[in-house]
């Protein structure tokens, strides 16, 4: 009796994996098609040509900083060295309790300078606006603490440019990052947001805000995340972009049309996933207003970020991501299967809702049930083989394909040894990292349901010293 129940439960789990992996397989087909086209486009788009020949719209970079005294000067310098003719840098000091503001004042000779806000999103109170005497295009806004979303909103309020780029203070943007990001806006006037690819900076040689040498990290945890990021980008974002339903723009790097963001009300301050929430809300509002718009994803590798290298930090990051995802998905639930929202409501939303948000529960319970049933001897050998093939075999194959796609399209990992390792990683990943990840994500959901407040710990070492 119990064995039969176990068997049926396992069949259900198998069904879940079939649906999930078929979804990814479909996406990989879409991805391959769009990448083939994109590779040509990359070769024909010469950023230097664009920079010298075209008139580019002004962009404001908004970088919130909270207690980043150790790294804020270096990262601000890195923003200033992004090659774009009329970019302004707005660092928003979100009520830091350390020396962040003092460090910035000293390094860039900041002077209090009045600057009128251009929008009125509700934010925590602004204490003072400073302009740098060394770089007139650098401004620092000092405000009361209000969280990252609040700091971004403050930046938007003080933004004079038609476009703003929201980023984490520790994101490393490639020199040509902005000019690449702005291309979709130039080609399609109705573009309202563009997300960029974010890659793992651990292991790379980073100096003065430039990635000088790309290499795989030595530690296991970041190494596995390299693979995970590749998979997320090649089997998610590229495909969603292709069908016009991009729901995620990473908070670490995204370019937005200011006017549209102000119209929809800016970032939400009551969620931990403000980056995703904003994009979903933009889709929702613009679709409700029946406006012609594009939210794009750019596969060029343009931004790098340091990923957690300890289990503790990674766990709390995943916990936060999952909570943010669940909050957003539930908040805009009315888009689910709603034909009014077109392909977003009918395809992307259900995918994210059932598979990405609540999938980890099925996935984790599935792993448990499988092991339990296996030990109890409730599973036939054919079923066991089929389960292993579908859940792990296809998962591994997908990861492998992601590495292949990376090698065929962007070729960032130049060392043959690194590539060999990347090909080996999917085998390792399936049996340790993915179940662990599913567990963390389930915990994240759990804490969402208990509406646990507070942010996870995210400790960063900073990029001043390069990892050798």
């Amino acid at each position, binding site marked *: 009796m119990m064995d039969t129940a176990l068997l049926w439960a396992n069949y259900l789990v198998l069904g879940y994996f*079939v649906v999930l992996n078929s979804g990814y*397989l479909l996406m990989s087909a879409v991805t391959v098609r769009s990448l083939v086209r994109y590779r*040509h*486009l990359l*070769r*024909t788009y*010469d950023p*230097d*040509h664009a920079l*010298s*020949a*075209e*008139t*580019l*719209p002004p962009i404001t970079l908004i970088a919130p900083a909270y207690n980043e005294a150790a790294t804020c000067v270096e990262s601000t310098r890195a923003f200033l060295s992004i090659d774009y003719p009329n970019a302004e840098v707005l660092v928003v000091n979100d009520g830091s309790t350390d020396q962040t503001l003092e460090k910035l004042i000293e390094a860039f000779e900041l002077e209090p*300078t*009045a*600057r*009128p*806000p*251009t*929008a*009125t999103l509700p934010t925590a109170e602004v204490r003072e606006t400073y302009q740098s005497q060394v770089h007139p295009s650098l401004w620092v806004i000092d405000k009361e603490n209000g969280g990252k979303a609040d700091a971004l909103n403050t930046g938007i309020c003080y933004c004079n440019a038609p476009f703003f780029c929201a980023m984490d203070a520790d994101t490393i943007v490639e020199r040509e990052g902005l000019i690449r990001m702005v291309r979709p*806006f*130039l*080609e*399609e*006037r*109705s573009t309202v947001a563009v997300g960029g690819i974010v890659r793992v900076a651990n292991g790379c040689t980073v100096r003065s805000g430039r990635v000088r040498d790309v290499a795989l990290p030595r530690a296991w945890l970041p190494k596995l995340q390299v693979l995970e990021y590749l998979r997320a980008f090649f089997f998610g974002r590229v495909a969603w972009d292709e069908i016009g339903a991009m729901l995620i723009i990473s908070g670490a790097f995204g370019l937005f049309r200011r006017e549209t963001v102000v119209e929809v009300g800016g970032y939400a301050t009551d969620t931990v996933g403000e980056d995703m929430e904003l994009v979903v809300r933009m889709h929702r509002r613009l679709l409700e207003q029946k406006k012609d718009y594009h939210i794009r994803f750019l596969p060029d590798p343009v931004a790098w970020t340091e990923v957690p290298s300890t289990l503790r930090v990674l766990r709390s990051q995943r916990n936060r991501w999952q909570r943010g995802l669940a909050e957003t998905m539930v908040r805009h639930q009315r888009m689910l299967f709603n034909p009014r929202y077109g392909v977003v409501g009918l395809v992307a939303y259900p995918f994210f809702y059932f598979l990405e948000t609540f999938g980890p529960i099925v996935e984790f319970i599935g792993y448990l049930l499988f092991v339990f049933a296996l030990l109890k001897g409730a599973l*036939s*050998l*054919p*079923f066991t*083989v*089929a389960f292993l*093939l*579908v859940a792990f*075999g*296809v998962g*591994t*194959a*997908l990861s*492998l*394909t992601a*590495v*292949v796609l990376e*090698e*065929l399209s962007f*070729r960032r990992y*130049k060392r*043959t040894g690194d*590539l*060999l390792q990347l*090909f080996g990683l999917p085998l390792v990943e399936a049996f340790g990292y993915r179940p662990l990840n599913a567990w963390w994500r389930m915990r994240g959901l759990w804490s969402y349901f208990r509406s646990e407040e507070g942010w996870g710990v995210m400790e960063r070492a900073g990029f001043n010293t390069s990892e050798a």
Partner: protein
Amino acid sequence: MGGLTLFDWLPRSTPGPLLVLMSVALAFFLLAGIAALVAMGIHLFDKWLDRRQCRERAAWRPRLYEVLMQEAAPAALIDHVHPLRFDAFLAFLTPYASTIEGNEMNHLQALARPFLPVVCERAKAGPPLRRTRALRRIGLFGGSRHVPLLRTILQEDAPDLVLRAAMRELGRLGTAADVPLILETIDQLTDMDRRQISSILYELGEEAAPVLRSALVNEVGPSQERSPFVRVVCAEALRWLGDAPSGPTAATLLRTNEDLDPEVRASLLRLLRRVGRPHHAAAVRPYCESPVAFVRIHAARALGSLGAARDEAPLETRLRIDDNRWVALSAANALAELERWAPLHRLHDDSHPRASLIAGLLPSPE
């Protein structure tokens, strides 16, 4: 159940659907493995290509310097380029071409010249992206002799991508005579960012101004009405050219034309701000009350450069009660530009909710 018998036994004792599932999964797994092997091969091949390119460029570089500095004839370098490697050679020259100008640019173009006929062939037909790249190279290394080719491409029914590139390069190499052709092409490319097109028109120089002006007033006749989009980019280009004669044209259009598109209106107001004279302010004033916010913004800005004492009151109204903050901000800036400080001081002293808008505008007390 040894390994050998497993492969015999498993298919026979597995239910059909499960078997299909298994084989599909297995097939995909194997496929991915093969793809990985292929990718590895490509990786090694690419590495070899990279090394070859490095060697090649190292050999080209010193000769390039010599040619640029006229220490050697172009042939000294061209003779070292294998005809099949012309693509790599032009790619090598490209960063230098966008760095230099003047005399050395002529020498650089001489280096590329023998390879341009092939590039022209590529620009004429083939995959759109390849054509685009060829067109860009023509713009970079070519000269006025390539203008007819660009014109032909614009007249044929090419893909948008190609049209865009051809238009851009025609802006670089062409003359004022090409404006009508470019304007016709613009009508097909309304997705493009306005600034991009205006800058193409701007690059044709001030000889183009009369043609742009006539497009702006829509003189072509009813059979060939210019779209608002075209008129906007013309106004923008005229503004960048700082074309003074278009001031009266813009003022007349604003005064007489009741049913102008708001975008066109705004661009005319921007144009007037740049090239207008104080007596054009009369044409601007009514638009401070326009129902369209961005028209009000540009009207207020234009008054900042053209206005007079009598504009103080209407601008102050905009500053205080307009429901759009950008209009208020533009009005504040306009008042400061006209040096009408009184309304700004009043706003500051009233501690009006909008007092923060004028931060930094008021002259410091001392």
